[in-house]
């Protein structure tokens, strides 16, 4: 089954009189359970593509299907609802809510979906265990290392059991060892849960984890090597 289908998608930004073509007609399918990397130099359109896949933005032209649903014309609240249950995000700068503990950050998406307290508790503890941070549950982001924060972010992205996790440069701010740990965890969770993981990166060490790479250049798909 296709989790994502993009048909001739373009995205044009206008800032004043200046027009920037971030994507110039991308057609792409992502299947259920894939572990794929979007690669390419800065400005090639990686982040824009992730934002369209994550329903954070709408294409200028073309059609985006997520999990079989055409999301191109959804209203902001409908897109928020779709993100809430279907898509998890991991960002480059960890992106945890500073005032909340690791436990509370992971719990947040479950609160948004109205999950019952007992179920929430079980799920958060399960995820803390999965990312090896059970001992750090009560720590706030400023009391954790970058690697630990990113592991909390991965746990949060998976909290609602989404079909798709999108990660934008997930290791860019981590040292080699922490970067490898984060990728190991994502790979393991992909294999264990079957969740589709797509990550944008230009780090060769990260690309080596991917079973498929989609290379973007100047807003177009330059190479789309499917798994063997």
């Amino acid at each position, binding site marked *: 089954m296709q989790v994502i289908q993009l048909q001739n998608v373009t995205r044009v930004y206008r800032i004043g009189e200046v027009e920037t073509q971030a994507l110039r007609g991308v057609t792409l399918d992502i299947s259920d359970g894939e572990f794929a990397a979007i690669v390419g130099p800065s400005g090639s359109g990686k982040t824009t593509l992730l934002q369209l896949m*994550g329903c954070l933005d709408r294409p200028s032209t073309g059609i985006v299907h997520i999990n079989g649903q055409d999301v191109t014309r959804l209203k902001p609240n409908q897109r928020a*609802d779709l993100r809430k249950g279907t898509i998890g*995000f991991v*960002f*480059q700068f960890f992106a945890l809510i500073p*005032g909340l503990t690791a436990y509370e950050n992971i719990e947040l998406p479950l*609160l*948004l979906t109205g999950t019952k307290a007992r179920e929430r508790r079980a799920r958060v503890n399960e995820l803390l265990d999965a990312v090896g941070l059970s001992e750090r549950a009560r720590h706030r982001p400023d009391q954790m290392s970058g690697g630990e924060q990113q592991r909390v972010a991965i746990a949060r992205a998976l909290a609602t059991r989404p079909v798709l996790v999108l990660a934008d440069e997930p290791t860019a701010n981590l040292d080699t060892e922490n970067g490898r740990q984060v990728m190991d965890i994502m790979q393991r969770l992909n294999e264990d849960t079957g969740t589709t993981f797509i990550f944008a990166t230009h780090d060769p060490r990260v690309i080596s984890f991917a079973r498929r790479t989609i290379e973007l250049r100047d807003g177009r798909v330059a190479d789309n090597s499917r798994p063997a």
Partner: protein
Amino acid sequence: MGRLSIGKLWYIAYRDLGRNRRRSALTLVAVALGMGLLIVMSGLIEGAVGGSLDNSIRLQTGHLQVRDESYDEDELSLEWEDLLDDPHGLAAHIQTLHNVRVATPVLWASGMLTARDESVGVQVFGIDPLSAAYTSIRDALVAGEFLAPDDRSGILMGQRLADSMGLSVGQRIVLVVSTADQEPDEATFTIRSLYATGVASYDETRVFLPLSKLQAFTRTEGRASAIFILLHHQDEADAVAAALRAPEFGVLTWRDLNQVLLQSLEASDVFLDMMNLVVLAVVAVVIANTLLMAVFERTREMGILAALGMKGRQILLMFLLQAGTLGVAGIVLGSLLGGLGVAYLATVGLPIGEAAAAGEASNIITYGNILYARFSPSDAVSLSTMELLITLLASLYPAWFAARMEPIEALRAL
């Protein structure tokens, strides 16, 4: 899809307040000081209003007055047809009515007091010195003995008037009055005692004689200008007035008798409202500024929350809850501060100075030279509600600003 409960949203908002403790504390203090100031100002105005009215009722108008239907207060008429024929009988009857504390006849005349080649116009009160209606004057004595009912040559006057003419107890003055047949008559009196109520307009212009002496002096033959009535409870005035109504009488309540005072107090309410608005506006600016700063600082968080699926209205509500929390905490703290301030000013009072007490306005606003505040629960409730509303209104723009932020715009701050 489930919903994010208000409690959880509040929890996130509350946790955020702790992140920048100094800013949250300063905002809290601004709201609390605003609230405290509003309560103290309202307490002082309430004290001035209530105190003036109490003084006026106690010393001048009473809760009710019964007069002859044709009596004209402005002329202080002494013509027989304008006076009550059997004031003692009428007062005794009124005294028997339920809720009446005291009813006593009084005769008013205008006069000219002369001593040491100096003359001043005065209002002469003929009173029953034994009546409980004059306890306030008796309590305000600063020199000499109170009048006796059968005193034929004694006069009671205000210390302020005596001081201005260089007079003291035991000295003699000449009083000229216009009699019932509109002829002037004069007599010499000895100052028996001096009083000081603290209300300049009384202490400078009013002199007292026993009723029977003034009746004889003015040739009003046992008549009186009015029956002065004090009730057990002020709010029973209308009911007692209704029981006293008769074609031959004019019955006036404290509201009728203090119209000028009440009007000027209404005018002071407008002034207070303006002051309140200024304080509330300052609080609003502080709150709006704090929350707007918080929104700018938290742009990336708005993006994260939006990415996680939080909707614009939930983000709006979260900011309103944050403002509401600051507002409620500030209002509780401010009410305590204000309450303590009012309690202090109710006990110790605020000296407003002799000059202010004797100023032009003292003819109307009849408080003494120390102003005592009064706590008004209804004012406190309405001011608290207003401050909370203003706080929430002021936070609407920052909250709306946060709520309408596009997720990708907010995430660019990452």
